[in-house]
């Protein structure tokens, strides 16, 4: 059973339930305590030791069921005339095949057992990729003794005896059923051990794919991308958005205690502790949604949306020709409609950074104070219009930090109509950011460095 449990842990890990060695030891202790007799008890007890979140419980249940379920074998029914040995009619040259006997008598449980044993020899549980399925199925069947069966069928077909031929046909049908079973078995193993790793690989690639690459993001990947972005924003917010107002440090403030005790003739009646004030993050995010960053805009907006859901004090703006506040839009609508709505109102126009900065400074400058972190998402391509550096300088002076994330690589900055190099002087941080992975890393740096805690 040790081996089976280890395999089960591996299946759990493959489906993203983390099982550390310590938990594996716990699981073994659990099993030693509850035994295998009661399936429900076994499952619940293992679940309590191994699955650590509600999601993991779901995945545990699914993996447990797939792993420990053996569907009834669909073997050919035994022939009608009961006491007649069905293998008799087959050609009797050479060794009698055990597999042939099982197939002809329809001995389902023996077949299932034989398949388990063969699977162990063929190492089916080591499956990694979906392309391995057919090869492993073949190998599994060969381990079970398929070659012999094929030889017997071929021999039976050559016989003149119609009974022998009929028996051969039946064996052939049973063989096909067996092949189906084997492929289903391998499929199940694949689902257990490999399907998740494939998905993880795809997510990894997506996180590293450039948002403004040729052709943009494949529509097939859009949904996955959305979930990735959401998960990312949630992760960041978990870490940084919690209210961190006052933390007791638990140390006596001697100076202030003594000061207070003066009033009581030196008797320290009022005890004062040291306290620390912690600010909540306050973020102003300004997102370019013009033509030149069209491909990236959707994801920047998705990111804004997710961040808006979890960060308490966040103001979001979008601009291309002019600038508007999109807070209300993000608050009221669901993510897809909100993004469409933003793009409809303001998107895909000619960029004018100068005008947009003017709009911002006229209407929203009062939202900046020394606690605010301003994040610009844009390519700084202003179509040769006046970039209004003076306004950006004002913003920089009023805010705690000004951060510019540019979807273009650094080598493009300052080329053509890009004024990135001129804007860069006013930014505390200016970084290229064109993949989700980079976006997450930068935002995390931003939150860690520029939000006091």
């Amino acid at each position, binding site marked *: 059973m040790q081996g089976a449990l280890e395999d089960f842990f591996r299946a759990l890990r493959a489906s993203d339930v*983390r099982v*550390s060695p*310590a*938990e594996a030891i*716990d699981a073994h*202790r*659990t099993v030693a*305590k*509850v035994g295998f007799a009661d399936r*429900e*008890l076994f499952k*619940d*007890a293992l*679940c*309590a*030791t191994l*699955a*650590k*979140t*509600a999601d*993991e*419980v779901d995945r545990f249940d699914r993996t447990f069921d797939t792993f420990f379920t053996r569907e009834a074998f669909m073997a050919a029914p035994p022939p009608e005339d009961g006491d007649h040995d069905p293998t008799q009619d087959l050609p009797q040259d050479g060794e009698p095949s055990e597999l042939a006997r099982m197939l002809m008598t329809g001995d389902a449980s023996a077949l299932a057992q034989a398949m388990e044993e063969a699977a162990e020899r063929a190492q089916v549980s080591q499956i990694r990729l979906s392309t391995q399925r057919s090869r492993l199925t073949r190998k599994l069947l060969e381990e079970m003794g398929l070659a012999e069966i094929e030889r017997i069928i071929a021999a039976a077909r050559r016989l003149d005896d119609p009974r022998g031929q009929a028996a051969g046909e039946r064996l052939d049908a049973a063989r096909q059923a067996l092949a189906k079973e084997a492929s289903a078995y391998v499929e199940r193993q694949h689902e257990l051990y490999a399907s998740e790793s494939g998905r993880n690989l795809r997510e990894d690639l997506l996180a590293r794919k450039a948002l403004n690459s040729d052709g943009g993001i494949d529509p097939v990947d859009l949904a996955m991308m959305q979930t990735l972005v959401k998960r990312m924003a949630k992760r960041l917010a*978990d870490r940084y958005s*919690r*209210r*961190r*107002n*006052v*933390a*007791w*440090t*638990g140390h*006596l403030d001697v100076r202030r*205690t003594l000061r207070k*005790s003066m009033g009581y003739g*030196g*008797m*320290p*009646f009022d*005890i004062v502790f040291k306290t620390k004030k912690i600010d909540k993050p306050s973020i102003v995010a300004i997102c370019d949604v013009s033509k030149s960053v069209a491909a990236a805009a959707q994801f920047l907006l998705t990111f804004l949306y997710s961040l808006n859901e979890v960060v308490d004090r966040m103001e979001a703006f979008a601009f291309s020709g002019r600038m508007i506040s999109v807070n209300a839009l993000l608050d009221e609508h669901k993510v897809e409609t909100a993004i469409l709505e933003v793009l409809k109102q303001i998107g895909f126009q000619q960029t004018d950074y100068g005008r947009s900065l003017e709009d911002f400074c006229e209407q929203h400058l009062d939202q900046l104070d020394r606690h605010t972190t301003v994040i610009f998402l844009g390519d700084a391509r202003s179509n040769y219009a006046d970039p209004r550096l003076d306004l950006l300088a004002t913003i920089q002076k009023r805010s705690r930090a000004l951060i510019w994330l540019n979807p273009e690589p650094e080598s493009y900055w300052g080329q053509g109509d890009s004024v990135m190099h001129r804007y860069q002087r006013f930014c505390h941080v200016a970084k290229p950011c064109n993949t989700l992975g980079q976006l997450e890393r930068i935002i995390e740096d931003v939150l860690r460095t520029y939000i006091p805690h």
Partner: protein
Amino acid sequence: MASVDALIQGLESVGYIASRRIATSLFMAVNLQKPILVEGSAGVGKTELALSTAALLGLPLIRMQCYEGLDESKALYEWKYGKQLLYTQILKDRMGASLADAPDMDAAMVRLHGMGDLFFSEPFLEPRPLMKALQEDDGCVLLIDEIDKSDEAFEAFLLEVLSAYQVSIPEIGVLKAKTPPIVFLTSNNVRDLGDALKRRCLHLHIPLPDAALERRIVASRVPGIEADLVGQLVSFVQSLRTLDLRKSPSISETVDWARALILLNADSLDTEVVRDSLNVLLKFEQDIVAIEPQIAELIRKPLA
């Protein structure tokens, strides 16, 4: 605590109807001596589970409510600073007298060193919940409520207590539990807990109960209620849960509602009674407004 079934019966005898999964987790927690992390939405009986376990085992319950800014001086121990300062003041003359006959500064200093530790000894230690739990001779049930509300720093601090059942106090040394307590941690998932903490705990997620279980819970919590009424109100609540509400009612709300209905002398649900008492069940104005026009329809729904 002999088997899971015995545990289910035992919990039932103290008024807690446990599903099999709950009882199994509790059984494993006691047998493996591990803390148990209970998650679930508000009002499904997370805290109640700890209370019932304490009642079942006849152990004292020590409860620690977590909140933002909770730190070890509130959770573990604190020096009684006031007392220390007061005593130094009161003993000032005494000290002066005993130091007076010291021949020189060095001798006085040596004598002072001898007294210094007096003020950092057990009498000046104010034990807080965690330390109390470790000091109980026959063990106890320690309930760390809403751990997700505390800071990460505090979570890290808990690790030593939860894995080794001991705490280190710099001035005194390591205090080890006489009998390891049974520890419950509850969480509403306000934030994700750290992996290190989760790894040290067994995990139990309490979902909203199905109709049959909920009927049993209401019947056990509200003695004297008629079976018909229980059936009606439970199916009403269950159908509420299928709707899109800001806060769907959980078990505690069902039980409160059942008590309210008894107070109102209702022996069956009708539109009037439900409308009057809906605020027991739903906690948001929007929810109440959304449900009010549908009450008659929801009552008429056949029992599931």
